[in-house]
């Protein structure tokens, strides 16, 4: 394993220190609870929004803290959910008196820890609503399983909810936006290489020189199928079909698209992927009204990409366009 790190045990802490030093105008770091907190939190009268999860998905979530998006992010160890006391500390730090939304990705660890964190906050009289993001079509959904993973739609949900909270919507409305984005969002990912967890020191899985893994999550969990390497056109078609048929998206739909790199794939390839995706959407009569192309929800140094589509109405698009100022996403200001 070769990485630009010091002690593996300190990776998250030192990276957070870098975020804090680089973006002191936007955020502050609580090192005890490993939180990235919006510099001007708590905002009295504004719904607070927190999210969090294992580290290793940067810029998510710490890079999305700031005006118009999250109020705080809880950083767990690499690929390990943060703990309930972190969620409690974050909730308190951003509580403006009108309740706090927890945006939780659907992983057992995240669910359980956020659940306990919310219980702690509610016991102290803070109103908390939790919304779970579960958008990964690679995973079969069922009442009897852990359900779908939360992946790329999380980024879109954080932006939309942040804008909703920023304009003064109440907790139920902000939470409803989160549910609406999740209900209209679908994602799928694939890997060309495994990531390497610093503390593990070796790749989580091995892929042959001509193999790829389709339906991968963001934690180096193996995907649903391993197959022979294909062209970008074939890969994107495969992923887009799975996504589009699942919601289903249909002709005339306006969508927000995210072509996301897993951390080790360069932008030249991601734009090529976007080109394929755009052609597929056009052929189906769908319009990509807004888009992000880049590394937004990564899996350490994994090479690969994921695609997310969220069906959007005019109001959702206007919330998308609202100003945002975070380390990882900025416009309108």
């Amino acid at each position, binding site marked *: 394993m070769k990485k630009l790190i010091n002690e593996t045990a300190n990776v998250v802490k030192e990276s957070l220190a870098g975020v804090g030093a680089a973006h002191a105008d936007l955020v502050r770091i609580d090192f005890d609870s490993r939180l990235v907190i919006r510099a001007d939190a708590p905002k009295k009268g504004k719904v607070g929004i927190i999210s969090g999860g294992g580290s290793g998905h940067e810029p998510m979530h710490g890079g999305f803290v700031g005006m118009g998006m999250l109020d705080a992010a809880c950083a767990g*160890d690499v690929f390990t959910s943060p703990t309930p006391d972190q969620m409690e500390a974050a909730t308190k730090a951003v509580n403006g008196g009108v309740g706090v939304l927890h945006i939780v990705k659907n992983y*057992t*660890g995240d669910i359980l820890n956020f659940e306990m964190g919310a219980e702690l906050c509610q016991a102290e009289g803070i109103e908390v609503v939790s919304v779970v993001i579960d958008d990964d079509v690679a995973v079969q959904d069922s009442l009897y*399983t852990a359900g779908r993973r939360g992946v790329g739609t999380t980024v879109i949900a954080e932006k939309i909810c942040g804008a909703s909270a920023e304009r003064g919507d109440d907790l139920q409305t902000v939470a409803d936006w989160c549910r609406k984005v999740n209900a209209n969002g679908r994602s799928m990912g694939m890997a060309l290489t495994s990531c390497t967890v610093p503390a593990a020191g070796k790749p989580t899985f091995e892929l042959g020189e001509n193999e790829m893994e389709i339906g991968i999550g963001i934690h180096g969990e193996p995907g649903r199928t391993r197959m022979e390497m294909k062209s970008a056109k074939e890969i994107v078609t495969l992923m887009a079909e799975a996504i589009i048929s699942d919601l289903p998206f249909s002709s005339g739909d306006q969508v927000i698209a995210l072509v996301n790199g897993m951390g080790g794939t360069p932008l030249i390839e991601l734009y090529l992927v976007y080109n394929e995706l755009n052609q597929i959407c056009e052929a189906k009569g769908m319009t990509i009204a807004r888009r992000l192309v880049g590394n937004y929800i990564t899996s350490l140094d994994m090479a690969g990409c994921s695609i997310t589509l969220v069906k959007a109405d005019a109001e959702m698009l206007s919330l998308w366009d609202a100003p945002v100022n975070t380390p990882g996403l900025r416009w309108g200001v």
Partner: protein
Amino acid sequence: MVSRDDIVAWVEALQKVYAENKEYLTDLDAKIGDADHGINLDRGYSAVVKKLAETNPPDVSSVLKTVAMTLISSVGGASGPLYGTLFLRASTACAGKTELAAADIVAIFQAGLDGVLQRGKAQLEDKTMVDALTPAINAMQQALNNGADLKEMLQQGVMAAESGMKGTIPLLAKKGRASYLGERSIGHQDPGATSSYLLLKTAAELWS
């Protein structure tokens, strides 16, 4: 009888056991999860041992509660809240006691398992720690009913945990990260069931 100090000794031994098995448990997790189970437990039990040394809780129940709270705030992942809940319920189940008899041991594990089931909503054969804990507790209860002493009872529990753990290999995972794999989760031993087996094995080696 199991005293406060026996509980502390057990937890300290667990720290060593999980440190020694850190890579093994992580490798199991790499196959069907995210390659961190051993790392998580090692971090958690190191924190626990430190916390116990600092706070020196006076009795069985408070030791178990310290273990619970420390695991909850240091492990993260799925196993943190689950093992944390296990110890928390165990702590409640023995509140006020100074020593634990064989029946008390079964009772605290049963309370702990109930907590795990409530929090994690797993069922038997979902390929989780529940598949090691449930048969173990059943076997201990059985042994107790048959008049076994503490040591004998624990040994029965460990044997059942071991076969429960091995029994996870052919199962298709329905809970936790392994469930994302569907059919591909078959053929691998569940890391959480393995750490649960080690939990009981360590107790059986220490207590009598």
